[in-house]
């Protein structure tokens, strides 16, 4: 019979998200609803403030992809004012964005996503010697001795035997959906711990350039990272600031460490684990549409030809055609609130371009159930997320969109890398349109980005050698130099996908501010036509629940998007008849 399952909170994500879905008699998900359950109103808080301060506020939208909103924000102000930044500042931003990709993707894989595929308790049954053989057969990574795995196993065993499982308590251990042999589980648990230690070290790159991580500092008009290389300095000397000849070498070794971890651990682990879960290449496709705004310019945001990620839209899986995308076109980008807890002055089914966007909260008036509640009112508003659409289409953004775009654009290193991975897994390119494809794309793009970083550092070092130390353009810092009114869009490719901030400036203050974030594109609710967003569509693609009380299948697909919101999942009856609530354990 049809069932309703409630999973709230979905853990191992950023933030608060809730999804409701319906199963048919066979236990397949027939419809799913995605709902963000927390709102702060940061766009409203930004109104009336100094546009140069906006990055710090916007950055606090998220502390995981911690720099992306800071970057999009300073770019929005620079776009509005036509404010050029020095090349070194662009390269510093690229290095910080690149480091964020690699850091964020590795942490997502090991610390947020892995426990969907890796059974920690099964690792206790592994033979450390065989684990070592397995590890050495797939990689040259140094920490692969039997003794090393024995130590890790001992650590886990003692934790289990202490009776206090902490973060591992109440997991779905032993669920038949876990397919890895004990040795692969032990290897993955060891790398879970290694990745924790590794990530601590590589964030030093953000600290050097931005003062700290999370929430490194940014600056409208450049980068707040003056370079102290001046040999003639009488005071302060050559190490007057954090960015100097010593730390340029630190950055170099951090980039090497990133490349090494991706090549020796992340890529081989992804391929090894994926080999046991090939059926996940056959479910979890989203909307069949993909969008990329573009990012990582070698020269500047005004020179899209120098971008590493180039913009475009792919419709209906057709990799032979790429549509151009224009963020300023009100016909292309619109946000809807038909199923959101907001009011628009133009009515609930009208779409607004972000320059004209509104953020009027209305929970009770738009169908929000009074807490404590069991069920969302999916016929009216059911989320704090809006529904953004490109030319009316629901599109997916993120690593899968970017890798497909590079592939479609004929980017040779991407074709080679994807070809190698798919060959190893004996899968066609179509396999990428899936839950596992999304997860694999994240791994592949980590390698692609890590391999770009040294190039940016080399260009910066060459600039410094040639005497160009400039990191900030002072010209338009003073608001008195600004036009009375201006508006602009700052965009970037965040690790989770295409991100844009729209700003309207009047008399030196923020008149309107709207952020359209990747997880809004991916996790947003249905639109006025009742078309599902990517999370919802992916869950509706070939998902049967082995045990509705342990919906690991839902977690796998939701986590494959790397959500940036806290969430919950329901499975409800499509016919609206009385449903049986199943306790999810």
């Amino acid at each position, binding site marked *: 019979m049809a069932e309703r399952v409630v*999973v*709230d*909170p979905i*853990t*191992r994500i950023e933030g*608060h998200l809730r999804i409701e879905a319906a199963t048919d008699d066979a236990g397949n998900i027939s419809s799913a609803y995605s709902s963000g359950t*927390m709102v*702060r*109103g*940061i766009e*409203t*808080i930004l109104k009336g*403030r100094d546009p140069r*301060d906006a990055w*710090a*506020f916007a950055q606090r*939208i*998220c*502390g*995981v992809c*911690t720099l992306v909103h800071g970057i999009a924000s300073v770019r929005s102000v620079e776009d509005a004012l036509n404010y050029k930044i020095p090349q070194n500042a662009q390269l510093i931003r690229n290095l910080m964005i690149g480091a964020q990709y690699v850091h964020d993707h590795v942490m997502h894989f090991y*610390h947020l996503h892995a426990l969907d595929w890796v059974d920690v*308790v099964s690792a206790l049954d592994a033979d450390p010697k065989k684990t070592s053989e397995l590890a050495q057969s797939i990689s040259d990574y140094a920490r692969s001795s039997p003794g090393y795995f024995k130590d890790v196993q001992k*650590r886990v065993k*003692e*934790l289990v035997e*202490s009776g206090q499982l902490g*973060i*591992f*308590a*109440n997991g779905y251990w032993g669920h038949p959906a876990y397919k890895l042999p004990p040795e692969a589980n032990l290897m993955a648990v060891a790398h879970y711990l290694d990745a924790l*230690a590794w*990530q*601590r070290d590589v964030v*030093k790159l953000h*600290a050097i*350039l931005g*003062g*700290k991580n999370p929430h490194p500092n940014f600056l409208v008009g450049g980068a*707040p990272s*003056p370079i102290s290389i001046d040999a003639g*300095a009488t*005071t*302060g000397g050559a190490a007057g*600031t*954090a960015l100097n000849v010593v730390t340029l070498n630190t950055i170099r070794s951090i980039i090497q460490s990133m490349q090494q971890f991706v090549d020796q651990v992340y890529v081989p682990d992804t391929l090894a684990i994926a080999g046991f879960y090939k059926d996940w290449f056959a479910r979890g496709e989203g909307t069949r549409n993909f969008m990329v705004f573009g990012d990582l310019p070698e020269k500047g945001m005004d020179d899209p030809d120098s971008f590493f990620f180039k913009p475009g839209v792919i419709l209906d899986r057709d990799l032979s055609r790429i549509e151009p995308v224009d963020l300023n076109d009100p016909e292309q980008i619109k946000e809807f609130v038909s199923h959101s807890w907001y009011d628009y002055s133009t009515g609930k089914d009208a779409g607004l371009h972000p320059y004209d966007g509104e953020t009027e*909260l209305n929970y009770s008036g738009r169908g*929000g159930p*009074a*807490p404590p509640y*069991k069920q969302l009112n999916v016929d009216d508003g059911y989320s704090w997320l809006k529904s953004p659409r490109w030319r009316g289409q629901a599109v997916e953004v993120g690593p899968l969109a970017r890798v497909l775009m590079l592939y479609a654009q004929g980017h040779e290193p991407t074709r080679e890398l994807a070809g190698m991975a798919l060959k190893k897994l004996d899968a066609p390119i179509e396999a990428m349109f899936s839950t596992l494809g999304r997860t694999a794309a994240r791994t592949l793009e980590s390698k692609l980005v890590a391999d770009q970083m040294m190039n940016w550092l080399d260009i910066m070092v060459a600039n410094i050698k040639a005497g160009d*130390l*400039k*990191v900030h353009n*002072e010209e338009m810092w003073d608001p008195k130099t600004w036009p009375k009114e201006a508006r602009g869009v700052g965009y970037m490719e965040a690790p989770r996908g295409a991100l844009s901030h729209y700003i309207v400036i009047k008399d030196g203050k923020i008149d309107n501010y709207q952020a359209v974030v990747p997880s809004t594109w991916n996790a947003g609710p249905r639109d006025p036509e009742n078309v599902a967003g990517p999370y919802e569509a992916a869950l509706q693609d070939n998902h049967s629940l082995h045990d509705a009380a342990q*919906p690991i299948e839902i977690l796998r697909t939701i986590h494959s998007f790397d959500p940036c919101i*806290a969430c*919950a999942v329901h499975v409800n009856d499509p016919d609206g008849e009385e449903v049986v609530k199943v306790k*999810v*354990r």
Partner: protein
Amino acid sequence: MSQREENLGQYMARRGISRRTFLKFCTVMGSTMALSPAQAAEMAETMAKATRQSVIWLSFQECTGCTESITRSHNPTLESLIFDFISLDYHHTLQAAAGDAAEHAREEAMKKHKGKYVVVVDGSIPMGENAHYSTIAGITNEQMLRDTAKDCFAIVTVGTCAAFGGIPAARPNPTGAVAVSDIIKDKPIINVSGCPPMPQVMTGTLSHILTFGAIPELDHLGRPIAFFGETIHDRCYRRPFYEKGQFAKSFDDEGARKGWCLYEVGCKGPTTYNACANLKWNGADTFPVQSGHGCLGCSEPNFWDQAGGFYAPLSVGDWGSHEVLAGAVVAGAAVGAAAAVAGRSKQKSAHEEKKS
């Protein structure tokens, strides 16, 4: 799968962690918290007798930056903390369980460790008629906080949002967000502010509680004095340039490149109590000022709404006269390694002045 619980001493002995290694850990923690060697030894003794402290971590109107920050802790590391010293029984970002299974983990820990567990909170809370602005498992954050706090030993707020309201409470506070202390009145609350807080300050504060089973000494805003006893300016490596009147006038001029004082480009270091300038960030021997941007003041209440924004220079009225600060720096130099103690009394007297 659960067995009897054992104390930390037994657990670590079984794990083959030597007394020497354990003492070393305690000494490192002790020095982070400016404890005497005798206190560090006492810490080791107490810890050996404890079971792993149950910690329930609640995330409300937040950005997960505080959690990300604690994963960057070098000493103790997060993995050492959760494997060896605490039992992190509920934590959305890290825990394996989801949905009801996660909620059960919280309820079980509350039952089993009644009166003993520590609640960590990140994020502000929309209260009363605004409570529907943030829900988990269909329950308002306010309800979850009240329920979970009822039987706890103490609450540690991490981040300026949980401590003081933070960004959601910034003007015009669209969701009516408040701090933990606006809701919970009958439990000890330790505020570890910062946006995010420094990793060592979070782990150091937790270590203090689990070592001594007591609340560390706090300032008038409920922050541990060991970490919040001095301003950024007190300990800033650029302080000599301030004394000499050498200021960066913009972000990339000669002064900026030579590491001169950032006061004129808006640095809030003189009015901001935090440990960034002495502990430094991410093991990278730097902190915001050293990298070239002024301090935003992120560990202070209402820093989002400060007059003039982040780039306007502080007016002298905000932080006392030049002479007073110069005097403080001399006193700080004289006490050398014990400067934390000086900071403590200094801030205490400032607090007393305020009261009188």
